[in-house]
C-alpha cells in the first residue's frame, strides 16, 4: 500500500481542462499553486502529425517524489525532456530555466573514458560551481563512489554508472531533479542502491520527478503518480487514489495490486 501524499505535496493535471484528467482533491490544487517549486502549463509537443504531448500541466513541491507512468510511447520521456529544457514545446511553458533543474537521462550521459572524478570535475566546472573540488568530494561521498573515484566510468557496473549519472545531475545543487527511467537495465541490487540514494535526496528536500516502466517502483517510492497515455495526462494522485478510482469504477477487483489497477485504469480509458 502506498502512503497518502504528505501535507501540501501534490502534482496537478491540466489546469485548463480539468475534465481530461482525474485528480485527488481540489484542496491539493490550491496548495500546489501556493508551494510549487516546479510548474508546467499547457505543454504540447508534436512530431509531424503525431501529437506526443497534449496540453499537459503539472506542478510539484519541495521534497516531493513524483512518478510518471504510462505505456510505451505515452510521452513520458518527451515530457521530462521538455521539463529539462532538452526539447522545446510547441506551446506551453515551464516555470524554471533548464539550469535550475537537475536532469538525469535514461542512459548515462557521462564519458566512459574519463574516471568518475574527472567526469564530476568536468561537469562541476561546466556548471560553474563555486568550489568544484569540494563539490566533487561531496558527490563522491553522497554516491559512495569514493573508492571508485579513479576508475574509468566505462569500467563501472551499470548501477555505479547510473550513480555517477545522477551525481552529475546533482552537481548544480538544484532543488528539482528529473530522472528518466533511473533504474532501467539495472539488476535488483543495483536498483535498490539507486533508490536509496534518490530517496535520501528527497528526504533532504530535493523535488524528484521520475519516469518509470516499473509500476511497482512507482507504487513503492512515489508520493504522486502521473498517468500518461498517448500524450494525454489521464490521472494525477497517489497510488492509493488510483486504486480507489479503479475500485469505484469496477468493484473490488484490483484492490491491493497496483499494477492490476493501473492496467485496468488504462483499459477503462481505452488504452
Amino acid at each position: 500500500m502506498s502512503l497518502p501524499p504528505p501535507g501540501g505535496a501534490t502534482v496537478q493535471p491540466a489546469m485548463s481542462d480539468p475534465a481530461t484528467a482525474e485528480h485527488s482533491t481540489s484542496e491539493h490544487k490550491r496548495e500546489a499553486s501556493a508551494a510549487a517549486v516546479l510548474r508546467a502549463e499547457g505543454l504540447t509537443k508534436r512530431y509531424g502529425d503525431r501529437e506526443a504531448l497534449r496540453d499537459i500541466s503539472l506542478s510539484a513541491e519541495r521534497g516531493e517524489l513524483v512518478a510518471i507512468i504510462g505505456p510505451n510511447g505515452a510521452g513520458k520521456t518527451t515530457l521530462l525532456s521538455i521539463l529539462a529544457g532538452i526539447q522545446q514545446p510547441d506551446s506551453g511553458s515551464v516555470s524554471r530555466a533548464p539550469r535550475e533543474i537537475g536532469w538525469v537521462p535514461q542512459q548515462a550521459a557521462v564519458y566512459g573514458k574519463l574516471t568518475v572524478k574527472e567526469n564530476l570535475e568536468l561537469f562541476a566546472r561546466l556548471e560553474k560551481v563555486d568550489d568544484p573540488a569540494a563539490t566533487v568530494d561531496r558527490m563522491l561521498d553522497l554516491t559512495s563512489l569514493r573508492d571508485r573515484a579513479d576508475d574509468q566510468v566505462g569500467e563501472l557496473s551499470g548501477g555505479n554508472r547510473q550513480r555517477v549519472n545522477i551525481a552529475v545531475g546533482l552537481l548544480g545543487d538544484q532543488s528539482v531533479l528529473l530522472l528518466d527511467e533511473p533504474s532501467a537495465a539495472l539488476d535488483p541490487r543495483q536498483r535498490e542502491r539507486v533508490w536509496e540514494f534518490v530517496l535520501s535526496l528527497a528526504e533532504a528536500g530535493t523535488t524528484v520527478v521520475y519516469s518509470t516502466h516499473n509500476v511497482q517502483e512507482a507504487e513503492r517510492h512515489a508520493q504522486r503518480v502521473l498517468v500518461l497515455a498517448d500524450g494525454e495526462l489521464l490521472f494525477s494522485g497517489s497510488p492509493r487514489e488510483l486504486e480507489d478510482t479503479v475500485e469505484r469504477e469496477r468493484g473490488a477487483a484490483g484492490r491491493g495490486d497496483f499494477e492490476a489497477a493501473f492496467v485496468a485504469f488504462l483499459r477503462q480509458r481505452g488504452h
Partner: protein
Amino acid sequence: MRWLLLKDLRILRRSPLLVGLLVLYPVVIATLIGFALSRGPDKPQVAFVSEVPESAQEIELGGERIDVAQEAGPLFRAIDPVRVKTREEAISKVRSGDVLGAVVVPEDTTRKLQAGLEPAEIEVFYNAEDPVKASFVRDTIKSQVADANTALTERYAKVALTFLDLIATGGNYSFFGRDFEVLGLQRSEQILSEAQRGLETRSPAREQVASVIEFARLARENLDLSDDVLASVGTPIRVKQTQLEGGSTPLSSFAVAIAISVSLMFITLLLAAGALALEREENAFPRLVRGLVSRTGLLVEKAGLAAVCSMVVVLLMLAGLGLFVDLEWGRFPLWVAAAGMGALAFASMGLAVGTLTREVRAASLLCVMVSLPLTFLALVPSGSVAPLLYDVVRVVSALFPFKPTLSAMESALNDSGGIGVPLVHLAALFLAFGVASRLGLRRFAQR
C-alpha cells in the same frame, strides 16, 4: 547458422541504401583512382595547329623530298591530336582545360629546316596549374620531338656525308638537272703529285705545290672523321615551352603539397566529426547544451580542437619532409596560413558530417567515404575526361576544401601563384559548412 544468415539477409534487404553504397562505392573509388593516378590517358589530348602554308610542307635534303606532315606522324601516334585552326584557339583550349597541352608549328619551320642554318622551333603550351599534368605534357612532347630530331639529324648527316665524300674523293653530282664532275681532294692530291714530279728540284713552284699537296692530304684525312662529328651534333628542331597559368611547382614539392593536404584532410575531418559524434554516443550532448555550453560554442570548440591538432601534425610533417625535399623555410608563415585555413575548412566540414551520425565509428566511416572520392576527383587532370564532365569535376571539387587547400599549400610551399584566392575560398567553405553544422545540430537533441 542458417537462421543467422536469413536474419542478416533480411536486414540487408531492408537496408537498400547500405547495399547500394556497398556495391557502388568500390566501383566509384576504383574509377576515380584510375582517372587520378594514370597521369592521363595513353594518348593525351593535345591541340595541334600548323601555320606552315600548304605549298611549303616539303623540304629537299640531298635530292630527297621530305614531307614534314609525314615526319610528324610519330607525334600523332603518341597523342590524341585535336586539330585547331589558329594559335589562339589552341591556347584557349589549354586554358579551359579541354586539352592537356597545345603544339604550334610556326610558319617558318620548313624554311629553317630547309636552310639548316638555325634550328626550327615548335611551340608547346601547357597549363602549369597541375604539375603532374604539366610534366606529363612536357615528357610526351619532348620524347616525340627527340625522336623527330634523331630522324632528321640522320638525314642531315647522310646528306652532309655525301657532300663530304664528294669533296674528299670526288665523283658525279646532280644539281638542277645538270651533272657535274667533282674532282675531289684525293684526285687533286694525285694530280698535284704528278705535276710536282715534272717540276725542277730547286724550283720555288715545287715547294708551293708540295704545301698544297700536304693541305689536300690533311683535309682528306680529317674529313674522314667528320661523320662521327656530324652524327653527334645537330638539333634541327627545338621546343619552345610556354607555361600559361600556375607557377613552377617542382613535382617533389607538389607531392609534398598533396601529402600535406591529404593528411590535413583526414586528421581534421576524423577529429572534428568524431569529437562531435562522441558527444552523442556518450549521451552527453543534451546535458551539455542545457545551459552548460551553447551549441555554437560546442562547434567552435570541436573545430578549434581538430584544426589545431591537425595543424601541429602537418607542420611536424613538413619539418620531417624538409629533410628530404628542399623546402623554403622563409615561407613558414605562408605554410601556417595555408594549413590553418585548410584545417578550419576541413574542421567545419567534419562537424557537418558529425551532425549526421550518432556514433564515432559511423562518423569516421562517413568521413572516409566522403573524402576519398573528393580527393581523387580533385586530382583528375583536365583532358582525361570529356570537357563537360571535367567542368562538373571542377565545380564539385570547388564545393569541398581539398582542392583549395592543395592550391594554398602549393602556393605556400612554392611561389606557384597567389595564395589569396584559395585562402578566401577556404574561408567561404569554412563559413558555409559552419552554417550547415549549426543547422545540423538543431536536430541533434531530437529523439
